[in-house]
């Protein structure tokens, strides 16, 4: 009973965290000054596709 409660709680939170991470574009990419401003500004729709 206690085992299942603790497992349910921690696994539920992990699932929720994974779900929230799916919606974070900055998980994979942070804006960098190396990005060429004109070229890289355009593909803003890239993260949107994931959301």
């Amino acid at each position, binding site marked *: 009973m206690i085992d299942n409660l*603790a497992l349910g709680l*921690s696994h539920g*939170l992990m699932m929720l965290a*994974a779900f929230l991470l799916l919606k974070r574009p900055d998980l994979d990419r942070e804006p960098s000054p*190396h990005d060429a*401003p004109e070229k890289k500004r355009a593909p803003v729709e890239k993260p949107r596709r994931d959301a």
Partner: protein
Amino acid sequence: MRDLAFIAFLLAFFAMGFKRPFLLVLVYVYIDIVSPQRLTYLLLNSVPISLIAVALAVGGWILADDKRDTRVGGRQVLIVLLLLYCWGTTIAADFPAEAKEKWDWVWKALAFAAFLPLTLRTRVRIEALLLFMILAASSIIVVGGIKTIASGGGGYGQLNLMVDNNSGLYEGSTISAVAIAIIPIIIWFMSHGTIFKPDWRVKSYCLALVFACLLIPVGTSTRTGLLCIGLLALLSIRNVKRKVAYLAMLGVLGVAAIPFLPSTFTSRMNTIKTYDADESASTRLAVWQWTIEYAKTHPFGGGFNAYLGNRIRYDLKTAPGTTGPASAAPATPKVEVDKARAYHSAYFEMLGEQGYPGLALWLAINLIGIVRMEIVRRRYRDPDGEFAWAGPLAAALQSGHIVYLLGAAFIAIAFQPFIYMLIGAQIGLDTYLSRKRSEQSFRPMRRSTAPSPA
């Protein structure tokens, strides 16, 4: 029923990993810490889920991840060197079959620790890794915490942590050292987390989890855990403003907690003072002595599990008051003979198994971590800067690491995978910040040509 829930969880987790490959790294972290295959009776324990997860995680990184400006930390090189060195000692081991058994999991922990920082390219990834490490460990810690309260402590080796084979994080001393080591990181999440924004719910959960962590040494009645709590209390002095008030509060809390501690715990903690009458402590001292002698003839180590070859004699003083009617008599020495006693210390584990070069590499990996985190902590002290989260995180990782190094003095956890993930997170944080620094020094040049805001 539990089996089905685990399978559903893993399938969902893997599926999300195909959308965001970094999640596959987290799947492996989860499997390595929780070992769901050991909590179930059917299905999962016949599938090599750990192998599948690591193959997918590495494959996902190779195929899909951005590898521009990948930086390799010096400690990653040291970890690879240690891995190669351990491979060598395994081939020449005193007990080849037993050595290979340990090698089978050690190399995975080391290889993953060397790989992990390559994937930690963003702040969210570093945070996600630490979040999953804590949540995965919490599945054991919450069980231990609730059971400690419910039963008033199980006594040493008694607390039922769902798995009875006493390995990995499910071993009492190991989980009590790890539970205390992660407390600073849990506290960091209370003010700097971005995945779970630190509102009142997150803060309450974190506090409850810290409380559960503090209960683990009580529930498992491990003396090492108590020492770790003491060290952590000392380490946190530097992070509080009112130091005297903090010390006074610690004292009051400590005294107030004593009546609530189960008698199994207090009676075992009292044995810290009479260590020479305690078999566990006496064998430790004898094994350590044996290891030092062994290293004189085997400076390059005897390979994993070389302790199997020891035969030790040690004097066990009979503690006054423990011998019934003769308790008034002074302590009398009693000679005990034993063989194949484990090291009970990571330092001696390294010395006996990997010799002086292995010990030196291991110490370098650990001590450089402490120093690097100190540098980062000082560099990012500014609470209003862009990287206000980084200084406190470095401090938390450093405190956790120091607590581990104390616990490691009494437990043979030199290759505990959880700690290598912590080291991986340290390296990841360090390389991330140095990448950011080089980007910032790059920025003025960019601004001169393109005045758009970054």
